[in-house]
């Protein structure tokens, strides 16, 4: 059985940052990821990131993993061990992790564990949503930006949050027509600069609109959309027929908390944070003292804040093992950074969710 000091599950922005923070403290880190390369969702984010200049703003998502990995290799000096193509399958009562590395079972018993498993896309129920041609936005982005495959010729995007807006822009960059972006809410949920970017690219954004059905014989040939009133009820007679061959769903994310349930961490349902999220203290430590969390699994947010949460989780996972150099100073800097990122109007929902989460600990 492998016995690393710290195991981190998930090599996205949160997991990589947790690893870097922990190796900087002097700890030994094993980073497990089911994909063949590190970076999580960053590997397909071809756009420049927002946020703080300190935290990779104005850098393209695809360029961030390389920066973090080379820092880990430099500063980890033999204490950083990534295990790729390794899916973590279970967490047992005795603190043992079961993983599958290329069809070989592995048992790992770390002293501390950071869960940074990210999020999964939400689905939307409507007739025809099982037709080929109905995709999650993440899948469209993977096809285009990782594998260079065009998902179709004319797309209906469902959801005007950041993912819906960004993927529409990237479809347009790939030369795919986006017939419209529809959004059930009366306001655009994503950053408005993304919205203006897709509007000047000629893509309409229809707020207070939803999809009624997808139709087609063997695959998507079109969609019926309609207007919604302020109570989210379809307005009779407002149906529009859109001839599209792809329907792309960007209707939100939900934390991937399965391992936390298995571990027995206490969780609370908070829609503001994306669904069930683990209770944790300001050190990102869950109700199980050896289990830390960071990133979208803890609360659906931006990659920038996921990276800062990762730094905090990695810092304290290491500090609890005795690698506690400058812990207070570093924690203060990271928590100030997090607070700043969440201080504006776009952070209001997160602040409310976190207040309710903490109220319940």
């Amino acid at each position, binding site marked *: 059985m492998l016995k690393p000091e710290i195991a981190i599950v998930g090599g996205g922005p949160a997991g990589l940052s947790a690893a870097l923070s922990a190796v900087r403290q002097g700890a030994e880190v094993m980073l497990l990821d089911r994909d063949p390369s590190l970076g999580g969702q960053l590997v397909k984010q071809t756009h420049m990131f927002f946020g*703080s200049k300190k935290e990779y703003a104005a850098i393209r998502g695809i360029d961030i993993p390389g920066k973090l990995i080379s820092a880990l290799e430099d500063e980890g000096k033999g204490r950083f061990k990534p295990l790729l193509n390794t899916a973590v399958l279970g967490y047992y009562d005795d603190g043992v992790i079961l993983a599958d590395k290329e069809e070989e079972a592995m048992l790992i018993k770390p002293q501390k564990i950071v869960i940074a498993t990210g999020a999964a896309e939400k689905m939307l129920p409507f007739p025809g949503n099982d037709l080929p041609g109905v995709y999650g936005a993440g899948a469209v982005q993977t096809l285009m930006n990782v594998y260079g495959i065009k998902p179709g010729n004319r797309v209906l995007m469902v959801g005007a949050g950041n993912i819906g807006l960004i993927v529409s822009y990237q479809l347009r960059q790939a030369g795919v027509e986006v017939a419209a972006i529809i959004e059930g809410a009366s*306001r655009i949920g994503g950053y408005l*600069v993304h919205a203006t970017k897709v509007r*000047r690219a*000629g893509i309409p*954004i229809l*707020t207070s609109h939803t999809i009624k059905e997808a139709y087609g014989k063997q695959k998507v040939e079109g969609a019926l959309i309609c207007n919604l009133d302020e109570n989210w009820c379809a307005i009779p007679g407002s149906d529009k027929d859109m001839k599209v061959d792809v329907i792309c769903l960007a209707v939100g994310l939900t934390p991937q908390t399965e391992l936390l349930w298995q571990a027995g961490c206490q969780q609370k349902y908070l829609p503001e944070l994306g669904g069930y999220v683990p209770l944790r203290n300001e050190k990102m430590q869950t109700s199980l003292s050896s289990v830390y969390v960071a990133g979208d699994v803890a609360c659906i947010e931006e990659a920038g804040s996921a990276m800062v949460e990762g730094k905090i989780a990695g810092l304290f996972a290491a500090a609890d093992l005795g690698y506690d150099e400058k812990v207070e100073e570093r924690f203060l800097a990271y928590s100030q950074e997090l607070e700043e990122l969440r201080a504006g109007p*776009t952070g209001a929902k997160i602040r409310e969710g976190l207040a309710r989460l903490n109220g319940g600990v």
Partner: protein
Amino acid sequence: MLEKTGVPDPEQINKITPSQERLKNGPVAIVECFQNIPCDPCRYACRQGAIKEFADINDLPVIDHEECNGCGLCISECPGLAIFVIDASYSADEGLIKMPYEYLPLPEQGEEVIGIDTEGREVCNARVVKVQNTKALDRTPVVTLAVPQAQLMKVRSFVKKGGE
């Protein structure tokens, strides 16, 4: 309304438009950023000190048009692609717009294209005066268009003639 349509209102554009005198004095950056989001790279991009220090990372950028020399370093640094440089001093009839343009193929210098407004509508003919795509721009090329003076605050993108 911007939150509903993704198109800035004329009042919002008026607020960030430099004075007529300043526009006549040569190139100047305009920042079409109307939402308080946690983002600050523009302030670090400016070497003139024209984009003021942020008290809070969620602040809207404040640009002093008198300090700005229109160098355009901020254009490709803005993750929102919301910064443009306007030069109304180019000629009596025409002005220049420098804009970020992340589409392929890039236009050729001298090419005639169609100017597009914030609603994606065709508004006028335009001419490509310059195409910059250096390593420093990091895959956000900057295209300079010549457009009629009256369209300087309207044109924010372009399409190639003959469609795609």
